[in-house]
């Protein structure tokens, strides 16, 4: 059972991502900011992180830097942003993100990235009935 941590201050976005991932059979844990996410990380092993950038207390970049500095098994992190700025993407990668997606991420696109990063496959929903 793959476990995914969603870190976003917007409840709507969390609900949206949670819906997509739980439907695909993943276990989803939520955190509302980077600090809360770090608490979760200290107690649980996650297989993937879905990280927002702008959050109160500790933002996405800060969370990733902390995460990558830890001596734990490292899992892929997808950074989700509303900005298509090149600099933001660079900063995300330098902070420890593995993929940078622009909100709103279409369900199919998010899922196909998550599955690829976790080494899973799924038939293409477009072609199935």
């Amino acid at each position, binding site marked *: 059972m793959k476990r995914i941590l969603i870190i976003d201050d917007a409840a709507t976005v969390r609900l949206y991502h949670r819906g997509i991932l739980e439907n695909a059979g993943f276990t989803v844990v939520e955190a509302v900011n980077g600090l809360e996410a770090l608490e979760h990380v200290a107690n649980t092993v996650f297989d993937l992180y879905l990280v927002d950038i702008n959050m109160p207390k500790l933002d996405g970049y800060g969370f990733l*830097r902390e995460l990558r500095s830890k001596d734990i098994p490292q899992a892929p992190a997808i950074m989700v942003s509303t900005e298509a700025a090149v600099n933001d993407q660079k900063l995300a990668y330098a902070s420890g993100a593995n993929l940078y997606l622009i909100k709103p991420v279409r369900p199919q696109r998010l899922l196909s990235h998550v599955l*690829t990063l976790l*080494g899973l496959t799924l*038939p*293409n929903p477009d072609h199935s009935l």
Partner: protein
Amino acid sequence: MNPLLIQFLAEGREFIQAISEKLLALEDDPNNSTHMNELFRLVHTLKGNCGLFDFPEMSRVLHAAEDLMDAARAGRVTFSRALADQLLEAMDFVSELLDEISAAATDQTPSTSQYAARAVQLGEALRGLMVKDVVNSEEVVSEVAAEVSSAQYAAPASVEHVLAVVPEAVRMELYRRLTAGEPLYRLIYQPEEDCFFKGEDPFFQIIQLPDVHWRHVTTRENWPPLTELDAYRCILRFELILSADAAYLNEHFRYVSDQIEILPLTAAMLVVPTGRAQAEPMAADFVQAAQTALASRNYFALAQATRTLLELSAPNLWIASALRWLLLLLDLPEPIDDGLQRLLAGIGEHLASQIPSALPFAKAEEQSPSFATDHEKPSLEKGGLEGFKGFISADTLSSAQEVLEAQREILTLPSTPWLTGQLKAVAACLTGVCVSLGMENELTTLQQALETALADKTAQALLTWLDQLTLPSTTAVTELPSPLAPAASVFQSNTSTPTAATEPVAFNRRAEDQPNTPRTIKVEQIKIDRLMNLIGEMVVAKNALPYLAGRAEDVFGVRELSREIKSQYSVINRIAEEMQDAIMQVRLLPVSFVFQRFPRLVRDLAHRLEKEVRLVMEGEATEADKNIIEALADPCTSCATVSITDWKRRMCGVLRASRAKGA
């Protein structure tokens, strides 16, 4: 209503409230960067949420608001009363839209499309604030222009829509000029209603402009019926695209500078495919082939494929328009990968929106080893899963390519203090890609590369490994059986065998078992009221126990039982009282619930009456029952209103009175 929408509406209202509060706080302290950043974050998040739904009006206004806040945050625009006014108006509009959406979702009334005109107006007003500041200082113009050209493909969505009215041929010509280095501007001129009485001649102003590439005259509002038409009232709106420079334009329009808007045009804004939407069966294969060609920078093959599909498509279709743009981009001396990529992704998304597909995620299955090795399963399911496993979907392949590209970029970045963690994470991603593409044989070399990289403390070993990796070619993928057959069989097998069918249900249940309860929950008031009524009844019912104890002693003469009932009664009594107290706590709200509307009320009223009013609030943390708080709202509000409008009364006295009532 769907739960996501309910959540969005509730959260949206909270955000708007918070944005208004922050705006008012900023007015008192315009240089407070904490407030400014927080405000930007709120607007930004609200816009992000809005993007999950199809509310173009709301997105448009919020996008403009966000851009304006970003400019204010970066110091490009100064925070002023006008700016706050405009943003507050925008938030009122958004809140109106939220009301409309929630009403529409319950009563099935018409959608929000009637708000489109106002959304455009508000969006432009917000952007206008930005532009006016920019045009005032020429230094900033060049700075912004440089910024725009560096981020050429990050065009705001609202502008794209506006430019869609420009004929495609004109836009293509403009695109060529822009990429050749010629600066272009979009000019919007909205003359004042009584401009004719001031001796202005808007039409003459416009036709005198040199180097105009495109002109368009519309009206700011619909023409009234001929009988009511006031021919001396100017409601025209001119829109032009021209190459004259900003300084010249400012000089040309110096008497009406507040009625024009000048926006620098970027190449990406022009790339807006237009036309009739229709699913094009060939196009899905094309997008995939094109992306592969692009990844390998085989522009010739890409152009070839584009021309072939273009010949097969009806010229008035959206897809044909997109393909023409693709060819134009390819035709540039130096094709810009980013732009091509974006256009291709756009085509992909357009296609996805055309194919009605219920997303069958619920049946998704991990490629668990237990399935692959279990020989006891019925043959149908086994066959289905094997077919499924062997098949690499176009989605997986394109996603794998994207992931690999990203990891390559990460590995080439300068080293960071958290390099070890980064390398491990990259290796985890690469492992995922290999497994999902069925290339498990690469994993040993990957592991070795990771160990070398960790020992050397550089990314080099992983980069070398990445360079030698060859993905399955697209031809191999297209030769695989049609995606329909294996996919369909998997789903049949999942629904027809009990083992597979129960699997996703189990996933969902376990997902809920997570010890991850949020710290606050929202409960409908009716549920709390019911609980409160029940507790009230219980309090009454428990009072029958002492009477029972008395009867046990007096009537039945069992003193022992009577004592036991009494001691039990004292326990129940204590619990009941605590319960009553607890439920009252639930219903308690801070009076700030009422007070929070005062700052805006006072501000607007003071502004309208041109009075200097300072609002002081104390004791907002005082708590009272929800019903009392709600009943207090109107009297308090009118107290506040009266104290401002009626100058003769002693304002402080009235407010203090209302405060006393609140507390």
